[in-house]
């Protein structure tokens, strides 16, 4: 794509815009003043490097997806909610798992006490997965699963549920987060050391590329990096670097970049520093496009187009005067919209302490609806584009990210993937994040930064800290269920398949997915499969970097 002359580019944009079906709403101000679709110069929306957005018509054609993610209790509870959602016309199912499941351990693990069914569903065996999706036609839904360390096992279970109900794996649509690098850097839900983890991920990418065309095997997440205390530029840089690392790993395993890159997607945080966030989002699209094209030789524009989901910043919510979080969330949601997000989750104001109450979750959804339908920001495509401060901020975010990439290339001998490994090993990522978190905390402490309700304007706090509790019944139920499954299954078959999995794990040439699918079909538990693989891969223990 050579740089077309400016008027040519404008004409190309116009053409693309004109051929887009727009939403049926008046594109005018509240007072009836009509507004243009676009102000300012190129690069135009829908054109490389996509700084101003992926689509020529921006939100004029389609608003972002208002995705609200929640879930707790048993698989059956969640199944009921799924069906409710499908009945009301939704087609996307979002699954959250409880902590033991996320860590690759079963509900009867020592540490699982008090955690089973909390913050998500407990999945120990295929039986739970079958309950979760009972009576749902997997060929007609798209399922998003937020899980990383044991993503391969969960995906294997999903495939098995499909096959047991007569749905070919090729028909399965959805996304699994599966972003293991940020686990070592930030969220800490890892199981195996980085390299074996990457082996599993490459196996999954190859498997899905070959057999599951509608499946997104990875969603690269900066959200958790930010929540762990990084600043905006670090969130941007580390996330994109992780994206590049997966690209390098996939290419090294023999895949063509355009075969899988279009199916990569991202997930960012939206914090309270308004212009910084907007600059971050715009820079993210531009950097991705440039690197995919220039460094990784992508030819398909879809490989260069960064799609991302945004969630408002959980860390920014305060327990003090919790209602004022509604204000924070509104501003952060607005930043997400002005940054051109594809989908948005707004936090509930009472989430600082625990799971959101239903009322708070509704207010959160309403907040983004206000941004979408009342503020008018969706009438103009990239309305802030061309504003000197916004463009400067975009450049600055990019510059800071490029510094990080240069460092990673340096420590990785010209490979971002190797740089990511090295940075995990030598504590670069966690150290940078902890430094940033500590700096911020000290500034708040010293009163240099005002956090409303925390170190200033503190009157009005009712001191109440409520917590939604999950009853112990979920745990009891799940333990009985797990025990029952273990009793009914063919124990020898489990042992045999796990033995085979272990042998295959030792041979990097073998793709682990087929045996993983067989294993879950014997009702081997997630924890058993993890344990078998740990014997070969080892368990990751984080080195302390402070």
């Amino acid at each position, binding site marked *: 794509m050579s740089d077309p002359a400016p008027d040519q580019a404008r004409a190309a944009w116009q053409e693309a815009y004109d051929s887009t079906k727009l939403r049926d709403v008046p594109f005018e101000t509240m007072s009836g003043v009509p507004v243009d679709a676009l102000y300012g110069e190129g690069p135009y929306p829908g054109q490389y490097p996509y700084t101003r957005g992926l689509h020529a018509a921006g939100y004029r054609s389609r608003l972002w997806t208002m995705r609200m993610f929640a879930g707790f209790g048993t698989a059956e509870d969640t199944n009921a909610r799924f069906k409710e959602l499908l009945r009301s016309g939704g087609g996307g199912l979002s699954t959250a798992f409880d902590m033991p499941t*996320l860590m690759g351990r079963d509900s009867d693990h020592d540490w699982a006490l008090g955690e089973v069914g909390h913050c998500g569903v407990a999945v120990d065996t295929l039986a739970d997965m079958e309950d979760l999706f009972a009576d749902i036609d997997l060929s007609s839904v798209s399922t998003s699963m937020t899980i990383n360390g044991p993503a391969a096992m969960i995906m294997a279970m999903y495939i098995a549920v499909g096959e047991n109900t007569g749905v070919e794996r090729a028909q399965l649509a959805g996304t699994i987060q599966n972003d293991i690098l940020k686990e070592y850097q930030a969220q*800490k839900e890892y199981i195996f050391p980085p390299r074996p983890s990457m082996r599993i991920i490459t196996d999954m990418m190859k498997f899905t590329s070959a057999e599951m065309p509608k499946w997104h095997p990875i969603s690269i997440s900066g959200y958790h990096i930010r929540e762990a205390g990084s600043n905006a530029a670090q969130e941007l840089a580390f996330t994109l670097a992780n994206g590049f690392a997966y690209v390098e790993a996939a290419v090294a395993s023999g895949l063509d970049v355009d075969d899988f890159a279009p199916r990569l997607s991202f997930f960012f945080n939206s914090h309270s520093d308004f212009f910084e966030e907007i600059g971050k989002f715009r820079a993210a699209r531009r950097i991705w496009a440039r690197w995919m094209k220039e460094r990784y030789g992508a030819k398909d524009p879809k490989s260069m187009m960064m799609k991302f989901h945004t969630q408002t910043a959980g860390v920014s919510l305060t*327990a003090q005067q919790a209602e004022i979080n509604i204000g924070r969330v509104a501003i952060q949601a607005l930043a997400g919209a002005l940054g051109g997000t594809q989908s948005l989750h707004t936090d509930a104001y009472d989430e600082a302490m*625990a799971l959101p109450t239903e009322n708070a979750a509704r207010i959160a959804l309403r907040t983004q609806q206000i941004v979408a339908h009342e503020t008018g920001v969706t009438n103009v495509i990239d309305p802030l584009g061309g504003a000197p401060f916004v463009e400067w901020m975009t450049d600055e975010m990019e510059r800071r990210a490029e510094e990080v990439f240069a460092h990673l290339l340096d420590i990785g001998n010209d490979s971002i993937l190797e740089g990511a490994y090295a940075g995990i090993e030598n504590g670069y990522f966690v150290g940078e994040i902890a430094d940033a978190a500590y700096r911020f*905390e000290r500034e708040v402490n010293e009163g240099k930064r005002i956090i409303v309700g925390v170190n200033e304007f503190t009157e009005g706090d009712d001191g109440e800290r409520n*917590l939604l509790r999950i009853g112990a019944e979920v745990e009891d139920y799940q333990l009985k269920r797990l025990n029952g499954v273990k009793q009914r299954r063919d124990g020898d078959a489990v042992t045999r398949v796990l033995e085979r999995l272990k042998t295959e794990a030792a041979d990097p040439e073998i793709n682990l997915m087929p045996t993983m699918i067989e294993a879950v079909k014997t009702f081997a538990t997630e924890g058993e499969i993890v344990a078998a693989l740990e014997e070969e891969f080892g368990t990751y223990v984080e080195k302390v970097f402070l």
Partner: protein
Amino acid sequence: MADEVSTNPPQLRVVLAKLGFDGHDRGIKIVARILRDAGMEVIYLGLRQSYKNVVNAVEQEDADAIGLSMHNASHMTLAPKMVAALAEAGLEVPVVVGGIVPDEDIEPLLEKGVAAILGPGASAEEVAQTIRDAVASMRAETSQA
């Protein structure tokens, strides 16, 4: 030099750990730095420690206090178990819990032997002072008993 140092109170040694699955370590890392900057020695165990690991560390490191960081609802099960494990090992060391603890849980935790609870809004001075106070009152308690 010797007399300069001896005028300072002996350095406190504090074990910091997270029990169970919870992987949120932003807070505990900040606390580690706060305590270091308050002149303490922090024995940082970090994530996913067992009671046994913490007991071992307290014994071998002769720690003066333990800081546990908790960010999920398991504080009501894990913290009292930690206190019990220490008692069983005959260790008279205060346990300070930091993180997200709802108001209604504070009293029950204190009753179960937790020395103090630090909320998310605690300042650096409060954090360090809470540890010092917990150590001091544990010492007062054990010397008078």
